[in-house]
């Protein structure tokens, strides 16, 4: 028996023991079951929508206040000219990384367990990027001139300055949002067609028909779809890596101790995926329970997610360690001050220790298979990681700015009511968009699940 066969066999055995799909029915049953969430929404949906909508209104009130009065209503100052706003931006865009990562990267690696959760994760990406996109706009002193960052022939004959990482951000965030949207939508088209063909009322069929773009599922269309989808996945994978690398450049291209660091791009990407997976778990665990989808999102999925968090958690932990070590090894007094004094023992030490506890200690529990497979335990771990990753960004931004080169200019930052409102408001807005998605769109890719079922059965037959 060759090694290759044994690997395949082992994989198959593993799949059987730990399935990614439990007892699927017929294609029609699978379809109906997955469409049920949309066609017959659960009773909690309406109140949940109302609550999150009110929270969204609150966000827009906070935005209106900020824009009309000035960002002085935030706690920012000189030296800490960036604080919650950019922290939230980096956090949200980091969360937005898991979706595309799961969809694209795992698609390329042909990971079967990805199917059940990819749509979910992609939608999460889009909505997280929307939240993220709010902050670069809002944090501008004069947001009404945001379009000056875009090269267009204006009457001033002045152009953007492309050495700035903020100009890169515009391109990166816009591209990331657009490509994620296209990728998500392309995957969604066949399912919208299924909705069109299965919805009971004519108006609803018509509505879905408009969004299904006339999808008819011919073999030729499917081929193009497969190629295009794979292509987008292939393109999106380096894109994911590039986006957070560019976001990290907002800090890394500066010369501030604590920002000026070559390790930032990979470190940020790992952190982004880390927080993104945590967000997927945060949303998936309740959705799985509420929609009774335990046989589609199986313990195997939870287990895989837990492992991903463990791996990325270790990458992040390693990054922290290497940063501190580099600072010490460099002998550079400013770097040493920031990493060895300011962060662990300065006025914001509690942020640093929150980061260590949430991001480095929490994932160690995921070594345990039992915890990885326990939805509740995993969910709690994910929450800790979310908080930890948010605190990490706050630590990077605020502690580095608070005490830099000249002690005379050192200062402290404390968030205001508006700062908190914007953070909490975006969480509501995100949940609102997400609930809309659950309400109106098949959130588990039906066609792909059916394909998966077919593949699994085929394998079963071949080896059964």
């Amino acid at each position, binding site marked *: 028996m060759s090694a290759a066969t044994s690997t395949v066999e082992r994989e198959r055995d593993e799949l059987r023991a730990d399935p990614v799909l439990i007892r699927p029915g017929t294609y029609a049953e699978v379809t109906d079951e997955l469409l049920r969430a949309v066609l017959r929404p659960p009773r909690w949906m309406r109140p949940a929508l109302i609550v999150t909508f009110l929270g969204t209104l609150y966000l827009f009130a906070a935005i209106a206040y900020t824009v009309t009065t000035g960002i002085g209503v935030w706690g920012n100052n000189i030296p800490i000219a960036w604080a919650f706003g950019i922290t939230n931006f980096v956090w949200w865009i980091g969360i937005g990384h898991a979706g595309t990562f799961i969809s694209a990267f795992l698609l390329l690696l042909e990971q079967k367990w990805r199917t059940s959760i990819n749509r979910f994760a992609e939608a999460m990406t889009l909505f997280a990027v929307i939240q993220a996109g709010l902050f670069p706009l809002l944090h501008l002193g004069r947001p009404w001139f945001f379009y000056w960052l875009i090269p267009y022939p204006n009457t001033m004959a002045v152009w953007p300055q492309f050495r700035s*990482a903020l100009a890169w951000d515009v391109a990166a965030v816009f591209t990331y949002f657009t490509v994620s949207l296209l990728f998500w939508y392309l995957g969604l088209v066949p399912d919208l067609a299924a909705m069109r063909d299965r919805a009971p009322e004519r108006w609803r069929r018509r509505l879905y028909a408009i969004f299904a773009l006339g999808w008819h599922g011919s073999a030729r269309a499917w081929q193009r779809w497969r190629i295009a989808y794979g292509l987008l996945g292939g393109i999106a994978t380096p894109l994911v890596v590039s986006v957070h690398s560019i976001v990290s450049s907002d800090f890394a291209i*500066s010369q*501030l101790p604590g920002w000026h660091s070559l390790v930032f791009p990979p470190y940020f990407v790992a952190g982004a995926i880390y927080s993104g997976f945590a967000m997927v778990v945060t949303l998936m665990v309740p959705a799985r329970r509420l929609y009774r989808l335990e046989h589609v999102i199986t313990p195997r999925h939870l287990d895989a997610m837990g492992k991903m968090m463990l791996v990325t958690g270790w990458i992040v932990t390693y990054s922290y360690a290497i940063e501190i070590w580099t600072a010490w090894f460099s002998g550079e*007094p400013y770097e040493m001050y920031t990493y060895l004094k300011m962060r662990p023992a300065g006025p914001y030490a509690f942020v640093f220790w929150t980061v260590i506890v949430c991001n480095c200690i929490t994932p160690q529990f995921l070594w345990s298979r039992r915890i990885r497979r326990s939805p509740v335990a995993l969910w709690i771990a994910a929450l800790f990681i979310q908080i930890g990753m948010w605190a990490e960004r706050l630590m990077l931004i605020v502690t580095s700015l608070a005490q830099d080169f000249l002690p005379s200019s050192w200062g402290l930052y404390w968030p205001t009511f508006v700062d908190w409102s914007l953070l909490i408001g975006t969480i509501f807005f995100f949940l609102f968009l997400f609930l809309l998605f659950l309400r109106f769109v098949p959130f588990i890719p039906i066609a792909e699940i059916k394909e998966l079922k077919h593949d699994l059965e085929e394998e079963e037959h071949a080896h059964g």
Partner: protein
Amino acid sequence: MADHRPSSRTPNVASSAPTDAGDVRRARSEQLAAALGALSDPVARRDFLTRMGAAIALAGLGGCTRAPREEIVPYVHTPVGVTPGKARMYATASTLDGYATGLLVESHVGRPTKIEGNPLHPASLGASGVFEQASLLGLYEPSRTRGIKERRSPTSWTHLWHVLGASRWTKEGGAGLWFLLEPTSSPTALALLDRIRERLPRATILFHSPTSPRHVWEGARIAFGRVLEPRYSLERADVIVSLDADFLGSGPAMLRLAREFADRRDVQGPNDTMNRLYVVEPLYTITGASADHRLRVRACDVLAVAALLAKELGLPKPPGAAPPNLTEAAVPHEKWIAAVARDLLAHRGRSLVIAGDAQPPEVHALVHVMNAYLGNLGVTVTMAPSPIAEAGEPSHELGRLADALGAGEVDTLVICGTNVAYASPTERGLGTLLPRAGKSVYLGMFEDETAELCTFTVAQAHPLESWGDARAFDGTVSIIQPLISPLFEGRTELDLLAPFAGRPETSSWDLVRERFRSDAARGRPAPEVERAWREALKRGIVEDTAIPPVTVTLDVPAVFDRVLGRAKSPPPPTPGAFELVSRPDPRVHDGRYANNAWLLELPAPITKLTWTNAATLSPATAAKLGVATGDEVELRSGVRSVRAPVFVVRGQADDTVGLTLGWGRRRGADLARGRGADAFALLTGPSSQSPSVEIRKTGAKRDLPITQTHHELHGRDEDILQHATLAELRDPGARRHHDKKRLALYRKEPGPSRWQWAMAIDLSRCTGCGACVVACQAENNVPTVGPDGVYLSREMHWLRIDTYAVGAPDDPQVAVQPMLCQHCEMAPCEYVCPVNATVHSHDGLNEMVYNRCVGTRFCSNNCPYKVRRFNWFDYHEHEPEVRSLAHNPDVTVRQRGVMEKCTFCVQRLREFEIAADQGRAKAPPQTACQQTCPTRAIVFGDIQDEGSLVSRLQNGDRAYGALANLGTEPRVRYLARIRNPNPELA
């Protein structure tokens, strides 16, 4: 594009509405009324439009808004010499406690916009201090009182004189008529007062300022038998000992002394020499910060230090044995004092001992003896009569007025310019006694504590609105000429006194001219006098009016008598009491500037505290009391107490609490009302003894608006603030190589330009007085942000004075460093701006383009010097229209949401360039900070010109770039701070 907002140029009279503003002698109340009328417009119309504009622009319709139509309002008659768009300079003077400082005032179509020192004036030498710089804002203060009021309701000048004319003193030769004036040196005022005394012989004329140098006068009387003032020649002194004298930070000759002092600190090469300064003081002052050796002792122990110093100098022993307690307090410092004495003795005739104004007369007298003994008298210090009228006379004491008021003998009280109800020790009780006058007239700028108690309030004209004259510390007369008609119908002291002198119809202009003629006319034909008058106005000084020094004879036994007499009756020590040291505040003086936002927001020199004063304590004393910075304490002296926040100052004397005067205002200073604690409440009447107070922690906390909270250098001295001793500078082995060769990725490419602007700042010269900070604020329309803004670290100063503590943690030396945009050639701020809003000019400026800025603030994050400032709100949004008249029309008023920072006064550079291009350039351009700097610590110029001073300094031995190891290639370079410590004390 959609950026049309009111700026420096729209609301004011300069460009769009220069009606008759240029003619300063014309009344312009209608125009001002229009300006003031806009204040009361309850509909925030502009505000609304701005927000609408924002909303429209946000909707992506930025290009759709058209520029609004503006008006152009030309003159009806163009005044002679006025060219709209061009500034003119006028020479005038300002006074403080009666002493004049010569000024040059910039005027844009009749609107004063900037104040500079007059280089020809002996007290200015071209420099100016914080008060002079900030007085511009005082002119446009909207809360100034207006016209004439009787019990707060408007009345008329005629009515006032009708009431006064009916008084009984008119028939009784002035009996019951009392005048309380600010100390004055004005020849015209003196002439008027003489006339009043002639006409009303029984009237009483008194002078009051809480900060008059009474002890100086008295000390001279003890030593020389007559009232004299010392004049110092610091340029001749190799060794200077200050006994609690803040001669660099206060006093009528402070600007001159600072220059003279700094000129002797300027070592360019190892062969240069420098002076040595010893300072003995209780609180930390900028003079102490400039010292080579500083001894912290309680204010009441300075006498002991002086006595011990005298003893160590080997002065002939006074008759009889000195009581042991005379020098007892100084004994722990005997070694230090002995070393100082030896240094002084080694520099006979080239040394100087200076006593502080607040020290008792005995210290002054003893200092005179020491200076005479050291052969300094007549060399480094000369004695001359005071320019102040009746200096040292009883008319400078308030006691008589208090008694007379108490006895009901005052029928009419005329108070001119002195807010006596606030600015006098509360124990004197004038605050309660004033209403006992039959009627009272108060000439004041504000509806303050005194105005509240007086029958009539007459709006006082600002010096920039007044005709007058005044003498400098050395007696040189300056004519005070107005640059603008009174904005608030104000009147001068001369206007108010003239009717008493029987000259009701004579304007102050006539009085000043008349006085000038009668003085200057002695034996000269009229046209020549007229020419002299023009010359005096043009130059800002009247030639040959200085009061020459006198030869003096010292009465040593009298001095020793008084000193011993004082020692025999020491104050009984109160257990648990602390010595209260109250000095004029470096920002609000005695409270008279408490309504000036520039001064209120000016960080106090050592503490960096704004918008309040604080009870300063040494760390040991604070520990003893169990308090820390920000804790509130109650200071109690007898029955009166005040509450103040604690500020712990390292280097302050133990068991001493410092509380500056001028805070805790109750009325008439809207901006400062209730801020800080009123030290006058704790002061005791006439005693020269520091009062003792009890201190109790209240448990409350106060948020202190401080602009700098960290003063440690964390071993970064080499990078940030280089300092060395003279010996180190001279030792080639010890001399450090300041600029190491750095690896650079990019090659510097300065653009092609006739000029390459650069700056050198000499840290050996800088005293940290803060004049540059206010000058910058005035020149560049820098807004104030208020105490809350400062508390949030949002102060807007483009130029700040960084203060670092060097040396022993409990008694550190303070090193100061003006920090402003370094105009880096490899500017880190520039490459991170996504919209090209900050870029580099061909002549080496780091340009900040407000109208292009979208406010990402990345530039500030990447600025290692953190000198960029952000408009978190629209700081000009609620600015009264009259206040906006203070704006420099050559500088953009910044909108909310944009970054700003030092521009090297680019408006001045461009003006110079245009002039140079047209072949009419005069002197090379100066930045505002450079121009005002009393010590010439800031040098600006063209670095391409190898002969320029800035080139020479930048290439000198002491030059270094702050944080230059980051590769920023700053265009500002500092010259390392050099101290000259006594090797014996090192």
